[in-house]
């Protein structure tokens, strides 16, 4: 047992650190630090900088543009990016549909879709949930009926995050009406420009336009866009959900937002001292800091098991539960630190009324309620642990 990184790992860390220091554009770093949503252009610009370096899709197989890094290296990479204030990758292309395509797609599909995903030429969004299917995803009813060499798709997808930017959507659709729930679902790629697709903004409680409903009305989709076998989509979706959870701990980013709230709290006055010197607030801060340490070492332990050949699997549900709870705690501390400057309603790109860090304090506190709901809610994660680890 050894706490230190190896010489090679340290060299790798320094390389990543130097690269991000030099290449991360200031406007992007500032937006991340101010807790503001990034524009599509900003997301794509940063992703293309990573692509030029060959680091756009670290977890992919080398032949498709991946890096061949160990899990520890990937952890160091994401830790360093987060700690430097780089925006998290928009997961839908690189972390979600990409792995499904290279794992289950045909050679033709791999050639057609993967290069544009890794190069961020195409923006993807996700069509899983529906108004009537949330945590019980397999109850979905959006249907695709075969018509010659096309499917005809009808239905509504809910919570399509950043669908307003998207060129393509990957959807779970019902292709067999008579099969039991999990069977009869297919994994379909749909061009957002297809006639009959429309995107309807859903404004969330903080006032932002982040999510949408996507409607499909007699949308004709080439049958070639079905991934893997028809009616086997649920298997692929489950695979993808595990993939998604392994990337949610976000420890680097957590540490940076946490450091920011601590820094801002030294500037907020309480009595003759600062908020950070206030004994009650200081204890809350210390408590969160200890939780972050526990999360970090939990993640490292799980990682090292994977690197030694163990399975990642359901343990990543633990990281999802704890990571998201901690993220929420930090938004709570930030709102608390803002004091009365938690009052002003500041829209996505609006001017701050008080200190810059307060501009989005309330908005992010409200918005971050989502993190324990999306990607499989905390309760769903507990269900996974119950079955897969506890064997209940």
């Amino acid at each position, binding site marked *: 047992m050894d*706490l230190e990184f190896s010489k090679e790992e340290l060299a790798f860390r320094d390389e990543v650190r130097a690269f991000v220091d030099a290449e991360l554009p200031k406007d992007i770093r500032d937006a991340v630090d101010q807790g503001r949503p990034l524009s599509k252009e900003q997301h794509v610009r940063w992703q293309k900088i990573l692509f030029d370096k060959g680091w756009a899709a670290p977890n992919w197989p080398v032949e498709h543009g991946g890096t061949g890094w160990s899990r520890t290296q990937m952890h160091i990479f994401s830790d360093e990016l987060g700690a430097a204030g780089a925006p998290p990758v928009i997961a839908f292309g690189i972390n979600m549909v990409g792995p499904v395509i290279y794992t289950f797609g045909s050679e033709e599909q791999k050639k057609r879709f993967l290069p544009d995903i890794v190069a961020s030429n195409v923006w993807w969004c996700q069509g899983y949930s529906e108004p009537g299917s949330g945590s019980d995803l397999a109850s979905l009813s959006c249907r695709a009926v075969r018509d010659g060499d096309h499917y005809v798709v009808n239905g509504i997808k809910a919570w399509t995050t950043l669908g307003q930017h998207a060129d393509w959507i990957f959807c779970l659709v019902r292709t067999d009406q008579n099969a039991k729930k999990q069977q009869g679902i297919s994994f379909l790629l749909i061009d957002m420009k297809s006639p009959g697709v429309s995107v309807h903004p859903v404004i969330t409680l903080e006032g932002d336009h982040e999510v949408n409903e996507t409607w499909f009305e007699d949308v004709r989709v080439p049958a070639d866009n079905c991934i893997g076998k028809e009616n086997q989509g649920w298997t692929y979706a489950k695979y993808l959900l595990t993939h998604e959870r392994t990337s949610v701990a976000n420890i680097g980013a957590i540490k940076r937002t946490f450091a920011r709230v601590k820094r801002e709290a030294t500037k907020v006055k309480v009595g003759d001292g600062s908020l950070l010197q206030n004994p009650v607030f200081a204890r809350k801060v210390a408590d969160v800091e200890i939780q972050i340490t526990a999360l970090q070492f939990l993640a490292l332990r799980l990682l090292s098991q994977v690197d030694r050949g163990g399975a990642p699997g359901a343990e990543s549900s633990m990281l999802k539960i704890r990571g998201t709870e901690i993220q929420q705690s930090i938004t709570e501390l930030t709102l608390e630190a803002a004091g009365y400057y938690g009052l002003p309603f500041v829209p996505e790109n609006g001017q701050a009324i008080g200190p810059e860090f307060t501009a989005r304090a309330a908005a992010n506190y409200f918005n971050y309620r989502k993190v324990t709901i999306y990607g499989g809610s905390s309760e769903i994660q507990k269900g996974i642990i119950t079955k897969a680890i506890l064997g209940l």
Partner: protein
Amino acid sequence: MDFSFNEEQNLLRDSVRKFVEKSYSFEQRRALSKSELGFSRDNWRAFAELGWTAIPFCEADGGLGGKAVDTMIVVEELGKGLVLEPYFATVVFAGGLLRRGGDALRAKHLPGLIGGETLAAVAYAEVDSRFDLHNVATTAKREGSGFVLDGKKIGVIAGPSADLLIVSARTSGGGQDKSGITLFAVDAKSAGVSRKDYRTVDGLRASDVTLSKVKVDASSVIGEVDAIDNGLAILEAGVDEAIIALGAEAMGVMEVLFKSTLDYIKERKQFGVPIGSFQALQHRMVDVFIEYEQAKSMAYMAAMTQDAANSSSELAKAAAALKVQLGKSGRVVGQQAIQLHGGMGMTEELAVSHYFKRMTIIDLMFGNADHHLGRYVALSA
């Protein structure tokens, strides 16, 4: 970064595990706990023969030069059996302080301690000190070339069997001054030492110790040069290392609580089904699992920090963070273990209640989670 154990460490774990399996069934432990001594001298001799008492001491002192991770392995496995022999009190805690003594003091005490002939305990807490190590009212006044100790120490774990007491006393200053504290190695049979012995709620033995005009000579001072008045730093480092070992014990205790509770809710039937099929219980069991995993991660972090630490403040922060986690996790794991066992969890005849009691005392030892959260804040300032 590496979380794996080497071959020697795996062998060490196996040998402790075998001992616990052979000698620490619930009934064996119960009988030992009720005996007059409260543990077995034969077991202790076996610990020495197996080399466990030598682990944390350097080779020049007759030890094995083990690291914190090695101690962690032993104590974790002992924790799984709620082992009663004073390994923690003698080898880890008292030994950790003696290790910081000068050549003559180490040569005098360590061979006996490593050989299993000497048992030792640390007498630092006082009636009014609560968890503050620097709050010392016991005095050590110079007399000739030596000192005379007066005062009262409480909560001395393994005090009744101790041949040697490590005592913190004030050689200068007063009240809560951080300087002016000196550590002494005191023969427990010295004139003027009297003890009130008692059983603890978790089945161990402890004492309140009164020191009345106890004469010690200058060679009993623990530390290198300038040790007089500067004992607090030694005591703090010793306590931090002891906390880290306590974290290892807690890992063992919590593992048993977690596993036996999980087994129980799979077997126990109510309303015609195993109670583990109820979601209200499943999610609570997941909470227990996550708390255990976090505590384990923190125990690893702290032991690895001790082995790598460059400064006493790094060690202190790691120990404080660990102690906060142990308090929190221990409470969830222990309380839920009792709750999920239902009425059976309330009984003295079920092992789970004994593990819960030990976990409760682990939170108390060296200051509870609240105390260490405050300490963590102070260390962060």
